[in-house]
């Protein structure tokens, strides 16, 4: 049985979409079911190793796509008005799983809406997820519920923004970190 069939059988209705790219399989699942999905993939299909966990901000990609679609529609004709599909949620969180036993890889993708950037933490299943989840929180502002120590990983604690969001300018907004000596006066 191919990997796709086995994943389909294991996840059932949780798998909302499959994408295959250059021999690698990616399965999309709903945000709220991520814990169940990851646990069953680990227990039933033997994906016993989390090789990476990362976030993606798709906002610019979606804008470009929407613009191109509008242009195309205008070029064809003015028919089909009002069937604007709402854009998919802005953020993604991806889990790259590896089965050491069978040497198979699987990408699990969840889409996280901008107005409720909350995902269940998988640190209970993999301790290895603690730092990647902190990094995703640091860079995108996605909160992981149940994370034991959700602090910024790369930027300093008082940093006011989420720098890998596409609306954050590359050269920053003038954030600086200063040294202040605390003087104890007697």
């Amino acid at each position, binding site marked *: 049985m191919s990997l796709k069939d086995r994943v389909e059988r294991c996840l059932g209705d949780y798998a909302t979409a499959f994408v295959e790219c250059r021999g690698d399989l990616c399965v999309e699942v709903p945000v709220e079911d991520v814990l169940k999905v990851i646990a069953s993939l680990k227990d039933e299909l033997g994906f016993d190793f989390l090789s990476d966990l990362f976030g993606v901000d798709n906002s610019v990609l979606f804008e470009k796509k929407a613009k191109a679609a509008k242009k195309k529609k205008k070029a064809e004709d003015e028919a089909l008005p009002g069937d604007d599909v709402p854009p998919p949620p802005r953020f993604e969180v991806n889990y790259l799983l590896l089965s050491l036993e069978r040497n198979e890889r699987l990408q699990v993708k969840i889409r996280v809406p901008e107005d409720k950037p909350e995902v269940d933490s998988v640190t209970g299943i993999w301790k290895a997820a603690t730092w990647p989840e902190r990094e995703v929180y640091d860079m995108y502002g996605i909160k992981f519920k149940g994370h034991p120590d959700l602090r910024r990983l790369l930027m*300093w604690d008082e940093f006011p923004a989420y*720098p890998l969001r596409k609306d954050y300018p590359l050269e920053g*907004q003038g954030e600086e*970190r200063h040294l202040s000596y605390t003087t104890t006066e007697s």
Partner: protein
Amino acid sequence: MGFQAYGGNGWLLTKMEQLINWGRSRSPWPLPYGTACCGIEMMAALAAGYDLGRFGAERPSFSPRQADVLIEAGTITKKMVPILKKIYDQMAEPKWVIAMGACACSGGVFRTYSTLQGIDNVIPVDVYVPGCPPRPEGLIYALMKVMEKIENDHPLRKHALDLVEG
């Protein structure tokens, strides 16, 4: 050099300032502060092949208290700024700073939110070494420039001014 030896039982006649500068310029103990790939070139310069010890930088001082020249070799992120500042503040006077490599001089290719655009935003720099990374010869030349600067210094005049101003 400013030394004049007279005959007899080893008398030496010189100026106090020149004696101080002679001592200081020939023992510029470096504080190696390598934060990126420039650090590797700095290690090469300190090691046997290039041997920075020939110029008196014999003892890389990993404690800022006993260092004279801070060699800042590499990128400084904004998160790192308080640490760099603290290390500079801990060095005893007199002290000199070499900014080694494009990142330390100007931020280099990292013109981003996370990188300090040149360490001279935070601490005073005496010699800049361009290059990405500079060769050990570049660092040796920078150290010789520091020695030159020390030799043209007026340590006593500064001290006298301090006394006048109180």
